[in-house]
């Protein structure tokens, strides 16, 4: 793992000391809330419905056992004993008290973590494929580049007052697990004539105006990556609209000016910037790379694993559902589900965090990842250790075998916590998950990505769910709109709105009807929901959702 240099450690410590003094000045009245707000936001501190919320970055989703244990300590000492993992590889604490926040940040600094630029109009936490450095299908680990981008973007003097927030995601694999097409900048690693580089995608994003990003550069070699990124952000910084926050994101800039004009401006700026980096970034990249050396993979017999896999059905289901192919055949990537039906998606208790920290240290080369799907990952587990890992997970309520299935739901905090929300998300996720769990049907239903947001800002990624659910306030009542056919991967697509929304009571039966329609129309079990939707289109699903409307139409036609 990347280790802080003395510079990094000093920088975070100094920043924390500054914020400690700013909090004191707010509490004694030297700073007004208007003065304090931008300062707290650039340190990740929000005010939510019931309390403050501290958003802590987990850069490119990577953390070790010691860091996870410290998160558990923070959860117990200063919060209510749990944390919430988010779709942007952050962890949120929902109940910190303002006078404690400086101590929390110091405790984070002790384990090389921080909350810098997790809010505000800055370049946010740089996210990456949660299987980075482990996936069998990967070209190269994208995280050294992610760390380089983090260092470049942190406190970048030109980019502290951007028109709006700015999000960057990286993938090192042709399989896009980092949602690169729904980020302000998505970087997809590609190989050209044996040379690694990045396809640069710009102007993707969800929120009130969902857009799939466009390719602005088909190939940028690593040596030119930072100047090219700087050129993009710099062009947008001047051109982006500051008159209307709903039109400020780069997706709107690209949409209004056209990708060709933006590309021309970026290339022009890039030509000016390219030489100014003078190779310093590349020297830094080489240093950073040493922090991402692959672990010392062990060898050992797999016979016991294979035997257990053969006769233990529960274990086999978990292995089949929750592990992915590792680039080392004797290893597996383990996804730990934070989606036990009935629980809050993405939440882990302090006790569970400690169990995961222990397991990572014992069996996982001391590495953990946070996925944008709000699960945790053990990226490197030797197959002979899977049984022990599974047992430990089961004992901690972390053994649910549902990765990628209908109960593995992304849900934002919604109106249970969020000041921006228009409806609740969590109870809807809980009801859908428990409903299908009780039917014992989800393995038959297969891969089905349900994503729920409690407002149009779309933190719950509803636009790119196979089934997306958007919670709205309709005349003082919670109402849920359904979108269908969204896709977060390399074949990214924004879902189609199915029709009028449903009340909280109607939403589970509506999802049930959608699933029944899928089971009726699929060719066989190998065709997943999204494929069936793409093949047959919206009509049969719409009919399933609105049977009375369909009957009414027939009657009218007759």
């Amino acid at each position: 793992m990347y280790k802080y240099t003395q510079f990094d450690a000093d920088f975070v410590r100094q920043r924390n000391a500054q914020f400690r003094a700013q909090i004191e000045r707010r509490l004694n009245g030297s700073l007004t809330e208007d003065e304090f707000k931008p300062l707290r936001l650039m340190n990740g501190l929000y005010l939510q419905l019931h309390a403050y919320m501290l958003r802590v970055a987990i850069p490119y989703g990577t953390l070790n056992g010691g860091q996870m244990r410290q998160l558990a300590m923070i959860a117990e000492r200063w919060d209510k004993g749990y944390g919430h993992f988010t779709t942007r590889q952050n962890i949120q604490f929902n109940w910190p008290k303002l006078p404690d926040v400086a101590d929390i940040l110091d405790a984070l600094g002790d384990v090389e973590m921080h909350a810098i630029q997790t809010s505000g109009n800055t370049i946010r936490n740089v996210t990456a494929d949660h299987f980075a450095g482990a996936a069998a299908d990967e070209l190269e680990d994208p995280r050294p580049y992610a760390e380089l981008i983090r260092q470049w973007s942190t406190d970048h003097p030109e980019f502290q007052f951007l028109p709006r927030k700015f999000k960057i995601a990286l993938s090192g694999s042709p399989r896009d697990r980092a949602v690169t097409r729904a980020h302000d900048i998505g970087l997809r690693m590609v190989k050209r004539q044996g040379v690694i580089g990045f396809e640069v995608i710009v102007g993707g994003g969800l929120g009130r105006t969902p857009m799939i990003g466009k390719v602005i550069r088909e190939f940028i070699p690593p040596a030119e990556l930072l100047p090219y990124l700087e050129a993009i952000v710099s062009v947008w910084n001047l051109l982006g609209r500051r008159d209307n926050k709903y039109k400020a994101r780069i997706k709107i800039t690209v949409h209004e000016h056209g990708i060709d004009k933006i590309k021309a401006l970026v290339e022009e700026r890039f030509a000016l910037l390219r030489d100014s980096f003078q190779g310093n970034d590349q020297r830094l990249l080489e240093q950073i790379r040493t922090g991402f050396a692959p672990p010392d993979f062990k060898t050992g017999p797999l016979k016991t694993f294979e035997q257990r896999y053969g006769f233990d059905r529960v274990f086999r289901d978990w292995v089949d559902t929750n592990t992915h192919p590792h680039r080392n055949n004797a290893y597996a990537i383990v996804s730990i589900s934070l989606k036990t039906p009935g629980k809050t998606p993405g939440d882990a208790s302090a006790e569970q965090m400690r169990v995961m920290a222990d397991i990572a240290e014992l069996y996982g080369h001391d590495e953990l990842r946070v996925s944008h799907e709000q699960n945790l990952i053990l990226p490197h587990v030797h197959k002979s250790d899977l049984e022990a890992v599974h047992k430990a997970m089961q004992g901690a309520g972390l053994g649910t075998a549902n990765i990628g299935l209908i109960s593995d739901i992304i849900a934002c905090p919604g109106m249970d916590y969020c000041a921006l929300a228009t409806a609740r998300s969590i109870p809807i996720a809980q009801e859908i998950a428990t409903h299908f769990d009780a039917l014992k049907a989800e393995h038959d239903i297969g891969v089905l990505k349900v994503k729920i947001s409690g407002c149009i800002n779309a933190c719950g990624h509803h636009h790119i769910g196979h089934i997306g659910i958007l919670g709205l306030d309709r005349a003082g009542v919670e109402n849920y709109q359904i979108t269908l056919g969204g896709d977060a991967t390399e074949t990214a697509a924004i879902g189609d709105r199915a029709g009028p929304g449903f009340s909280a009571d109607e939403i589970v039966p509506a999802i049930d009807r959608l699933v029944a329609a899928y089971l009726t129309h699929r060719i066989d079990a190998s065709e997943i929901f999204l494929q069936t939707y793409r093949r047959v289109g919206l009509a049969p699903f719409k009919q399933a959702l609105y049977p009375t409307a369909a009957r009414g139409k027939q009657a009218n036609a007759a």
Partner: protein
Amino acid sequence: MLRPFIDKVVTANDLREGDVVYLTETNNWTRHLSEAEVLQDEATAKARLTAGSGDVLKIIGAYLADVTAAETGPEPRHFREEFRRTGPSNYFHGKQESAENV
């Protein structure tokens, strides 16, 4: 046509703890909606909001929330305010933790 005025309370979050608070008749901040001062006309509501907002060492983000007067005190008219005076629905946290707070 002038719409009839809907009763209001001044609500905010406590500066230190973030907890939801309401302005009382005696210019204090209470954690209990039932103890909040109910404002029955536009001018009073505006004046009380201005007064409450000035309490910058105690609270943050004051605004007016619609309520309906009831025998037990004001009741929220919107579900958002219902959640604010209760707490989240996924854990027994927030105000509901101590029943007398609701």
